[in-house]
């Protein structure tokens, strides 16, 4: 049994505009003493995954379910009080993004590190202080730092204090959310070295959340790539870095500017999607160069493409007069010159085929038909790709159905 098993985790937020599907059916397993790096861009749901596991939820939660098995106990089944007493900070703790700026400016560092011991374990002041000092040493800080205030410390030292706070209750697992983001390159390297040492010495498990693939590779045994609330690829880090399977993973790897090595970085066209109304089928399909029939093209997407289309006339076809979306799978196109017989759909079909390479949205068209002088395009049903593979999984139709 793995140390941590997250199964079908969901976290949605309620907003005025609708339900934000921040974590949408995320599953992964981790062995004790290893690191799973969760990588993705902003808004992909990686921080929400941490909130879902630690149950640090805002008031506008819309859906929070799934199984989180830690040492075979389902954490999701525990009551709030039990979770707070036994799990949060004691078994799983967290280094929040920007935590070093959230240290209380009016308390000495030693007191801040000792606080969880006094609150959760009810320790006496001296005992707590002694353990806090020992923890500060564990993170490479000299004892006298305990009597300093945060503003007297450098960025790197503050981050070590934050890590000490996360370790003071001797948890089995630490969630690290962008633990080095505001730090200089050198300080970042020193903190990463510290995290490596601590993992080895104390058999810690890390869930390491970051947008930086380079940083992730420093600690990751397993790498998980998140996009728009979904875990699109997951597997051993070596395999993902050397042979990524999902088009988004590949695009992300190619977008990293390298200091050494020949390739120039490439951007990914488009922007991450709206999590309230994400794209149908595979959420990455609008930006994917390989998207094909089942990937989730809808009539509104085709309509947008056609409305910006000028090459129809160039192909010898009548100009488009109006495009109407009948529903998600059907589009009605009114041409300036209505085609009279079915045969005249031929040039249109050929045009569509010609566009498929440069504009994948055309591959969503299942067939074209005539309806009272208009052309009706029927699109393929969108299908959500499930994970394919065993220890190395990716959710992409290319893996099972080819292109």
């Amino acid at each position: 049994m793995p140390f941590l098993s997250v199964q079908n985790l969901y976290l949605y937020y309620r907003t005025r505009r609708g339900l934000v599907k921040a974590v949408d059916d995320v599953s992964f397993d981790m062995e004790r003493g290893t690191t799973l790096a969760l990588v993705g861009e902003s808004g992909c749901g990686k921080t929400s995954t941490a909130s879902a596991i630690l149950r640090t939820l805002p008031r506008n939660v819309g859906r929070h379910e799934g199984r989180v098995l830690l040492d075979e106990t389902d954490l999701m089944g525990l009551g709030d009080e039990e979770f707070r007493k036994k799990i949060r900070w004691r078994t799983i703790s967290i280094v929040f993004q920007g935590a070093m700026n959230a240290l209380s400016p009016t308390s000495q560092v030693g007191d801040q590190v000792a606080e969880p011991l006094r609150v959760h374990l009810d320790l006496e002041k001296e005992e707590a202080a002694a353990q806090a000092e020992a923890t500060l040493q564990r993170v490479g800080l000299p004892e006298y730092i305990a009597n300093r205030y945060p503003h007297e410390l450098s960025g790197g030292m503050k981050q070590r204090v934050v890590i000490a706070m996360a370790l003071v209750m001797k948890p089995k697992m630490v969630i690290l959310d962008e633990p080095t983001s505001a730090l200089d390159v050198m300080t970042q390297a020193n903190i990463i070295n510290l995290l490596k040492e601590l993992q080895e010495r104390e058999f810690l498990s890390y869930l390491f959340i970051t947008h930086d693939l380079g940083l992730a590779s420093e600690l990751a045994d397993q790498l998980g790539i998140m996009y728009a609330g979904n875990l699109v690829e997951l597997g051993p880090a070596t395999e993902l870095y050397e042979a990524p399977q999902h088009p988004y993973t590949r695009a992300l790897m190619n977008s990293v500017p390298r200091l050494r090595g020949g390739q120039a970085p490439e951007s990914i066209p488009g922007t991450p999607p709206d999590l309230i109304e994400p794209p149908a089928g595979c959420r990455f399909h609008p930006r994917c160069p390989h998207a094909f029939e089942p990937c989730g093209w809808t009539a509104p997407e085709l309509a947008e493409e056609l409305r910006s289309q000028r090459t129809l006339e160039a192909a010898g076809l009548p100009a488009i007069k109006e495009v109407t979306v009948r529903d998600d799978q059907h589009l009605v196109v009114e041409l300036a010159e209505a085609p009279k017989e079915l045969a005249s759909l031929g040039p249109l079909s050929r045009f569509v085929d010609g566009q498929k390479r440069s504009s994948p949205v055309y591959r969503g068209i299942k067939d074209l038909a005539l309806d009272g002088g208009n052309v009706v395009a029927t699109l393929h049903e969108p299908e959500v790709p499930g994970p394919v593979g065993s220890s190395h999984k990716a959710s992409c139709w290319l893996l099972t159905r080819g292109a």
Partner: protein
Amino acid sequence: MWFEFGGFLFRKPRHVKAVDGLTLQFGRRETVAIVGESGSGKTTLGRTVLRLLEPTDGKMLFDGRDITHATQKELAWLRRKAQMIPQDPYSSVNPTFSIYRTLEEPLAIHHVGSLEERSERIHKALENVKLTPPEVFVTKFPHMLSGGQRQRVAVARALMLDPEFIVADEPVSMLDASVRISILQLLRQLQEQFGISFLYITHDFATARHFSERIGIMYAGKLVEVGPVADILQVPLHPYTNALMEAIPEPDPANKGRRRRALPGEPPSLADPPSGCYFHPRCPIAKVGLCDVEEPQLRELRPAHSVACHLAG
């Protein structure tokens, strides 16, 4: 570039040497990247070059004209030729201005063009930064745009007066990885199209590598190494440059099993810098009696590649 502070209550003022004795030259259509960590003085350099700050000492020549202590009238001339793209796309664009108004502002301030001409220039600028169709974007407000789109607006704004020189201060560090590249590529393309020179200020060595011709490394207010990109990467001469390059993690699973080489400590206080070479307290090869006594000067050790280190070469 010295800042004075603390000179009240009869205390002797202390000086923060934000930029200390730096010499740099820019050619046309060239991008020079200044790479340094926070506190290295690179942002101060950027703002001084544009005369947003007046230098305490030294000289700055733009297109042959001395702008070091220029008058207001001369500064207006400079503003049309030299512009800035700031770091934070979320705070550099006025949230109460429509995109149209944001882009019109430089034209209005410098009394450029009739209303019709301005509208045309604004539409053209939006097309140049790929915010199309322009008609859709001119009426939008910043909060309706993504970070990448906002930064494109900042770029468009910098282009409004047809500048010859742009200081881009960490223009992509607040954007997502995939968006960064598209913005940097846009700047390169605009450079090609309009012949603009760029001063690209960043802490990210890797992007500096891909988007500039020359790189200068700053440490504690000093330029410690400068030269062509490829040469700096292949033959870093300054121990700080070397340490900086080694500290950067590339996406490589082999990193997991290794300890990353990094210098201990932090950059020095610019109000109270070390004696001799500012880097000597952290330098792995510092020589006592030399490095802690004498400040090294920049000297050219390879073609167009200079370094300020007693022990280099």
